[in-house]
């Protein structure tokens, strides 16, 4: 494939990949993987986003379309480089490309919204009226992680309090600027402007920008992601995110809210039966008390039967799913016959 040789040097802009790699110390840092493994299906602890089994399922569903992952990004215009390779070298290059694609497809963490900070350190009432504006003091020690940095605000009424999350993010961006992040969040992330972005089908770009701009547990990040997922589900544009790192997050969001029907139909239309079965397995992992989960466990169903049971019990669009399954089976029959 000469095409692979051409885009061998193409990469996401260095800023976004650097952002991606630095932030994902999250999982190790905050100990988000509670109990890894499928052991907690029947127990009280609900499987979280970071569990191994969940991540494996989501990764399988994401797919690996090398042409989409290494799609040429707008960079400085250079003539393409061609390399002459033997078969063995080409396989080696493909293998390396797959590994790098796997790295690029690491899913951003899904966290709960952060609690607002309301901590007062000191209250000096006699300072009231001396100043007209507040002071914001930031600790510039280089070796302190940003989460533990001291950022305090001295208000004009004399109270010394810890800074709110928005103030913290702004100050940290002023003194320790990160690529791709602005001090004041761009107007693009407001709801009325997101609509325009969705009309142009640029969901992946806005999600990348959102990851660069906000912290994963900030309310803005969560709000933008949820709007994007809602819009994709409303219009059925699941394929836009298929081979990107946002697919896992979208599936997690939909499964948690039990709105998986459109996605299931889309997968069956594209003949991705394995993905459909893993979607239903994930659904059962997250909602073990629902009827289809119990039936599946009793009967130990696999493949198409699982989908049929799920369609009968849990889904709202049963008719569509049956139709899609029928079409798939007919297509399979004709292809095997011919």
């Amino acid at each position, binding site marked *: 494939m000469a095409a692979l040789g051409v885009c061998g040097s193409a990469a996401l802009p260095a800023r976004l990949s650097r952002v991606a790699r630095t932030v994902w110390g999250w999982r190790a840092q905050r100990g988000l993987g509670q109990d890894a493994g499928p052991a907690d299906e029947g127990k009280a602890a609900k499987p979280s986003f970071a569990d191994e089994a969940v991540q494996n399922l989501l990764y399988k569903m994401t797919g690996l379309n090398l042409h989409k992952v290494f799609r040429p990004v707008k960079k400085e215009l250079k003539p393409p480089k061609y390399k002459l390779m033997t078969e063995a070298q080409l396989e080696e290059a493909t293998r390396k490309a797959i590994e790098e694609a796997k790295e690029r497809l690491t899913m951003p963490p899904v966290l709960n919204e952060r609690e607002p900070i309301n901590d007062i350190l*000191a209250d000096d009432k006699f300072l009231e009226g001396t100043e007209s504006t507040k*002071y*914001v*003091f*930031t*600790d*510039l*020690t280089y070796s302190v992680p940003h989460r533990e940095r001291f950022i305090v605000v001295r208000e004009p009424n004399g109270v010394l309090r810890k800074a709110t999350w928005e*103030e913290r993010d702004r100050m940290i961006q002023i003194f320790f600027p990160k690529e791709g992040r602005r001090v004041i969040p761009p107007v693009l992330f407001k709801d009325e402007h997101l609509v325009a972005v969705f009309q142009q089908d640029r969901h992946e770009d806005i999600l990348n920008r959102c990851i660069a701009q906000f912290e994963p547990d900030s309310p803005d990040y969560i709000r933008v992601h949820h709007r994007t997922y809602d819009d994709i589900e409303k219009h059925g544009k699941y394929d836009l995110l298929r081979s990107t790192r946002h697919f896992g997050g979208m599936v997690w969001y939909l499964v948690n809210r039990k709105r998986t029907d459109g996605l299931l139909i889309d997968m069956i239309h594209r003949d991705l039966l394995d993905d459909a079965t893993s979607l239903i397995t994930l659904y059962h992992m997250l909602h073990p008390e629902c009827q289809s989960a119990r039936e599946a466990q009793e009967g130990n169903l696999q493949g198409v039967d699982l989908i049929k049971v799920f369609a009968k019990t849990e889904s709202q669009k049963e008719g569509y799913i049956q139709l899609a399954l029928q079409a798939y089976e007919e297509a399979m029959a004709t292809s095997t016959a011919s």
Partner: protein
Amino acid sequence: PLFAGSRLLKGYRGGHVVIRFALGGCTNRPFFRIVAAHSRRARDGKYLEQLGCLDPLPNAHGERVAGLNLERLRYWLGCGAQLSRPAEKLLGLAGFLPLHPMTVTSAERLRRRRAQEAVAPAADGSPSPGDLP
């Protein structure tokens, strides 16, 4: 290599390390750098280390931004550096040091003056505030 007698390596007699504000910026736009320097150096001249900055003008969100490298500040204070009065006041406001007594005193003086000004125009309607001390 620089020789001790050359103009570049100026030697001072006496003096000590101070942590003070060095003024920079442009006309009508001050900007202070919190700096550890020899006391005999020029205010904006060569310093030992920059420990932070202060922007005295409020920004778009109505805040005056200040950054302080507390770890290095502790190092220099441990080495025996002294602080200038504005630096002490700023650190008192920040909470790193206890509040400076002059901050408290000037706050009280301001309050007293404002109280007097509030009382005086109410007391005498005729324009002669000159008999106040």
